[in-house]
């Protein structure tokens, strides 16, 4: 393929590969950047996102960590205060619960409390979300815990391109950024700019346009919502779909503008609904666009119980595109018969995929 054609050709890679690319670029660009985590150097390389880094950048920049999450989170903060720019990785968000003290009391506050003198430029990569029967302590999506804390930035990409661009921006940011990756998002593939171009951490992105309703989704749920939105659009009901992307600091300006137009708001996020991401989006947008809201906002999230391991229970646990389509369609006034057809189509698509695995390449169990 001639060079120019190749440059114009879409370059389809997975989000996991995009994360790896962003990491390589950040490390090449700035020698203060280093990577640390349990498994960062192992043969699986954290879902492939760190594969080969140690060989490329050496052991002093790609650090294998003992099982001591609080300790090495504090260590990263200390190194960041001294001018380094660590990227921390927790293979499961649950492990990072051990590091909450360091993240909430030190990382989030040290810039503020020092009157702006200290900087803690670290990126904390957390992997959330569903897996193969992982059970309740290996499958949570706890982004709301981090999003509540002033001083942290919280980012959730939903595409390969954003995974790369937002991670680059996170590494370049002088504040601590919690970068949350849904496990199934790792398999999202798409065109990714070969250049290391940061995507600003400046708020939601509209991924589909329409005027019948406003849908706000996070991370992997953006993909489910997109399927729903496309099926609805085919049935004549086009909606605005936003990928929230930056949970904190939260900017709902574009969403509010959309709701002013559509009069309806539906949120779809990856965590528990109660005291979750959708609650804030609904509360804030309701405040800002009350007069234009024509129906009560609707939230879709996980039900209020832990993740069960058994497949038969996990089935109903995770909202999928048909449920989203129903909620959105109802809000947008789509007739019951049309909605039934839309859902049937989505359900057929969904059922063609295994329930507890994200991608045919996924062989479980890890």
């Amino acid at each position, binding site marked *: 393929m001639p060079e120019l054609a190749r440059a114009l050709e879409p370059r389809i890679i997975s989000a996991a590969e995009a994360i790896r690319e962003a990491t390589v670029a950040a490390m090449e660009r700035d020698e203060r950047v280093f990577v640390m985590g349990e498994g960062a150097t192992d043969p699986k390389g954290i879902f492939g996102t760190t594969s080969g880094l140690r060989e490329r950048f050496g052991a002093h920049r790609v650090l294998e960590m*003992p099982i001591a999450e609080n300790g090495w989170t504090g260590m990263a903060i200390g190194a960041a205060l001294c001018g380094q720019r660590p990227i921390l990785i927790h293979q499961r968000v649950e492990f990072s619960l051990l590091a909450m003290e360091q993240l909430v009391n030190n990382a989030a506050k040290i810039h503020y409390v020092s009157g702006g003198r200290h900087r803690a430029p670290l990126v904390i990569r957390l992997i959330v979300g569903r897996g*193969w029967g*992982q059970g309740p302590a290996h499958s949570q999506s706890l982004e709301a815990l981090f999003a509540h804390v002033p001083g942290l930035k919280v980012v959730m990409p939903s595409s390969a391109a954003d995974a790369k661009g937002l991670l680059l921006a996170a590494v370049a940011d002088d504040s601590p950024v919690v970068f949350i990756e849904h496990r199934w998002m790792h398999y999202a593939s798409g065109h990714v700019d070969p250049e290391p171009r940061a995507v600003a951490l400046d708020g939601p992105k509209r991924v589909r346009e329409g005027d019948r309703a406003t849908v706000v989704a996070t991370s992997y749920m953006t993909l489910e919502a997109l399927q729903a939105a496309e099926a609805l659009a085919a049935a004549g009901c086009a909606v605005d779909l936003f990928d929230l992307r930056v949970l904190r600091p939260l900017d709902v300006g574009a969403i509010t503008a959309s709701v002013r137009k559509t009069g309806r708001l539906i949120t779809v996020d990856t965590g528990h609904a109660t005291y979750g991401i959708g609650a804030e989006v609904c509360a804030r947008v309701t405040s800002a666009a009350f007069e234009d809201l024509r129906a009560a906002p609707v939230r879709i999230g996980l039900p209020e119980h832990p993740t069960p391991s058994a497949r038969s*229970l996990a089935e109903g646990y995770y909202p999928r595109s048909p449920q989203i389509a129903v909620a959105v369609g109802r809000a947008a006034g789509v007739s019951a018969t049309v909605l039934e057809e839309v859902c049937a189509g989505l359900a057929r698509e969904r059922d063609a995929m295994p329930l507890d695995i994200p991608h045919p390449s996924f062989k479980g169990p890890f």
Partner: protein
Amino acid sequence: MTQTTMRPTLTSVLTPHARIDLFRQMLRIRRIEEEIARRYAEQQMRCPVHLSVGQEAAAVGACCVLRATDQIVSTHRCHGHYLAKGGSLNAMIAELHGRVTGCCSGRGGSMHLFDAAAGVLASVPIVGGNVPLAVGAALAAKQRRTNDVAVAFFGDGALEEGVVHESANLAATHGLPMVFFLENNRYSVYTPLDQRQPARPIVAFADAHGMPARSVDGNDVLSVREAMIHAVARARRGDGPSLVVAETYRFLEHCGPADDDALGYRPAGELARWQARCPITSFEAYLRELGELEDAIIEAFKTTIAAEIKLAFADALAAPVPAPETAQEGVYA
């Protein structure tokens, strides 16, 4: 370092029958794990599995000196401990299959095995997170004056978690009836010990927390048992906790059913060296030497175990899966 030399005690004298039973138990765990591995690819067990093949002597040697009311707390790698402590095989296999007849009604999967009747208090998938639960069980035993002991199983990786140190300090300060049982299989997932901890005798952990320790060949069921007899007796006497370190090795991959030697994270030949010290074949050889074990007995064991396993899998597959509408039940007690 408090490496008390081993001296046989009255209780440590075993009848040939009891010795053979230790062999049978190890063989049983091995066979069960192997069957799980064999069937895993069928994708009926849809949860991560951390098999304990190679570490059977630790589980059996530790649990054989405990009574049913003594409590153990296990890890992600809990099958062996659960079985050695008397946990129900059927409830375990059903749990791995996500069935209502599972010990967690299918909600927990392989990393949450427990059996109240057998004294398997809980298994916990967060490394180190199980250890303080055992401290709590020991505290309850002391407060309720049951004279029971609690045993925390944990791996070499767990030693890196602060909570394990906190637990040791708590147990020692409060003189709780408990044993810290460390299976040093040298790896945390793919990372060898020397990349995660400095070179020093692992038993120094116990010194730091003012408790006695003993390090034993974890592939020798009798050595493990011997060390546990002392540790448990000490705990039951009210003299507080101690540490037992069982030096052992995992034969299969960290998580999943396969052999993973090809990945290259183990030094060449290391796996083979440890396989040559297989806890089961070496104990078999020893018992044969003593004249206590022979082909017929082994065959009989194998037959019984095979039947039991077959039944457990059949029962599991025949059992209903939990009804989706029950998913919301039981969040609060």
